[in-house]
């Protein structure tokens, strides 16, 4: 304390627990992007050996970039000068990108994903690439080929997945916010389990160009942040039509920060909210923890107290979302991952002149892919094979239609539908990794919105056994603003009642604050 100027200590401690809107204000007040970036890099250096949230960090490049933003005088204007972390499924020109797989170890992409390019153009500073389940296949980040990521709330528990590096980094103070991707819940589930806000945009509203494909009809990038408003600002920066993605919707960038600000006012008069019976309601509570259901019920009551009209809606086809998803996603993956053939990028094994192309390909893929990726490729190959196609893949696609119809029927009656984000709080590391079916159950509540392509947000709604619980709000396609409005109302009402932000309850933060005060 005596050797370091007190104001510096305070500044670096404070900066890594600020929201992005506070960072913007600090930059406008004279703080520099270089200082803020350095504070995050210091936290990464100190804590990430244990937390395991990053796969690649280049401190010199980050500082240089921040200094350039400072020198240009643009820091504090919009997102300029704000650090950001990107899930390693997003390709970044000249910056190693692995998608959590050994098959891409050491690969430096020759171009930027649109999401990365837009954030770059906005003046953000790339802190690093975050850990993830290999090719985004998993719900715990334990399928990463590189390292385990721990939950900042309890280091013996998973941070969720597949965007678990992003969730751990943002919750743990190692990034102010991050981009994740969501195929069946991979933004919302890790956000829920680490006490963050995570939003899966309407399918097609954020470009997939430069996302290493897992399941192309489902993959969608989106924001993970400490507050609803921050998530909205990040979403606005990456959203909008992209001619490089043929599935991109040609619609204007949605106005989301305004919806979040309006929601924070706390008036939901006239808003119709439907509670999905099939996701934790009466007769559908198997596998749901009582503590999770209790927090969700309290959140619903809070919405009602702000003027929302709440009723139950029934979506019977949601019961089949899990089996439909675990046929559709592996089928698309088995096709998408055929690009990893040891020819154009990444690993090549056994090319010693004695083996032909097929053998080299099979050895490369055997060595380069982990167990879950192989299981899904095999399952997808089976579901697409002649004789089984109609019974599995075809049937799953028809169930997908039924799920979309259930959403449409619900939205005829209500403006948003809500549920828990996950059936349980974060589970212990290692507890499900050998049981794929148990692991898949972590996605129970997030899969319907993925299959229907509708937007869905997870916002914290309290603690159960000291661990965060997420509340999911789903809206019709292109009505992402409703998710932000309702989530902000809930966040603001809870913050007011608590007298602090959700993440201020993080045990590690308390210890830090106590240490700082002493």
């Amino acid at each position, binding site marked *: 304390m005596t050797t370091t100027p007190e104001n510096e200590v305070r500044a670096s401690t404070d900066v890594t627990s600020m929201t992005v809107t506070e960072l913007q204000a600090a930059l406008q007040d004279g703080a520099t992007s270089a200082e803020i970036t350095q504070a995050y890099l210091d936290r990464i250096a100190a804590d990430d050996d244990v937390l395991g949230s990053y796969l690649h960090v280049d401190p010199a490049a980050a500082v240089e970039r921040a200094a350039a933003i400072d020198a240009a005088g643009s820091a504090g204007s919009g997102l300029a000068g704000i650090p950001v972390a990107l899930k390693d499924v997003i390709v970044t020109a000249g910056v190693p990108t692995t998608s959590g797989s050994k098959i891409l170890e050491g690969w430096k992409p020759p171009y930027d994903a649109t999401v990365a390019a837009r954030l770059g153009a906005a003046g953000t500073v790339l802190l690093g690439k975050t850990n993830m389940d290999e090719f985004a296949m998993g719900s715990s980040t334990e399928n990463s080929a590189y390292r385990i990521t721990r939950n900042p709330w309890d280091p013996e528990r998973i941070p969720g997945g597949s965007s678990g590096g992003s969730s751990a980094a943002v919750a743990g103070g190692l990034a102010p916010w991050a981009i994740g991707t969501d195929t069946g819940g991979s933004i919302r589930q890790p956000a829920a389990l680490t006490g963050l806000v995570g939003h899966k945009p309407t399918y097609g509203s954020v470009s997939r160009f430069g996302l290493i494909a897992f399941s192309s009809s489902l993959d969608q990038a989106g924001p993970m942040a400490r507050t609803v408003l921050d998530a909205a600002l990040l979403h606005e920066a990456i959203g909008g039509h992209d001619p490089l993605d043929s599935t991109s919707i040609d619609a204007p960038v949605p106005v989301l920060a305004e919806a979040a600000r309006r929601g924070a006012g706390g008036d939901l008069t006239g808003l119709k909210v439907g509670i999905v019976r099939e996701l934790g309601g009466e007769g559908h509570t198997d596998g749901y923890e009582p503590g999770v259901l209790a927090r969700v019920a309290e959140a619903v009551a809070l919405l009602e107290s702000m003027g929302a009209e709440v009723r139950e809606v029934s979506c019977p086809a949601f019961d089949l979302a899990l089996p439909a998803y675990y046929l559709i996603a592996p089928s698309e993956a088995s096709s998408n991952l055929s690009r990893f053939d040891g020819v*154009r990028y990444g690993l090549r094994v056994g090319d010693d002149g004695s083996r032909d192309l097929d053998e080299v390909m099979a050895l490369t893929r055997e060595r380069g892919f982990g167990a879950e990726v*192989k299981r899904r490729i095999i*399952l997808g190959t089976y*579901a697409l094979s002649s004789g089984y196609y109609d019974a599995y893949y075809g049937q799953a696609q028809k169930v997908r239609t039924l799920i979309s119809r259930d959403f449409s029927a619900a939205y005829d009656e209500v403006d948003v539908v809500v549920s828990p984000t996950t059936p349980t709080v974060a589970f212990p590391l290692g507890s499900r990794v050998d049981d*794929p079916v148990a692991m898949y159950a972590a996605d129970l509540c997030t899969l319907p919105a993925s299959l229907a392509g509708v937007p869905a947000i997870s916002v914290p709604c309290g603690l159960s056994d000291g661990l965060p619980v997420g509340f999911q709000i789903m809206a019709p396609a292109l009505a992402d603003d409703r998710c932000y409005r309702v989530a902000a109302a809930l966040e603001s009402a809870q913050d007011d009642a608590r007298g602090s932000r959700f993440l201020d309850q993080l045990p590690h933060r308390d210890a830090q604050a106590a240490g700082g005060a002493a």
Partner: protein
Amino acid sequence: MSTLSRKDVAHLARLARLAVTDEELDLFAGQLADVLDAVAQVGKAAVEEVPPTTHAVPMTNVMREDVVGPSLPREIVLAGAPAAEEGRFRVPRILQEEA
């Protein structure tokens, strides 16, 4: 219908160009049989008259302007390849040589 033998898994792995090990075959056959039991529930839905959804946002024939755009320089693309030769990707032989 919804069971996968060790032999089935070996066949599927070969189709998918995965040189799986014996240990993996033992492990995957059991795990995939469990997964298949779980996903086979889609068969319960009455969907005779229901059209399939391949994509949540239906779009057809998305075209761009028919003009030449920029593309990546050859040397940059080849720099990421495991093996290159004479400005091309080098691959192992694809045909057996005649004796």
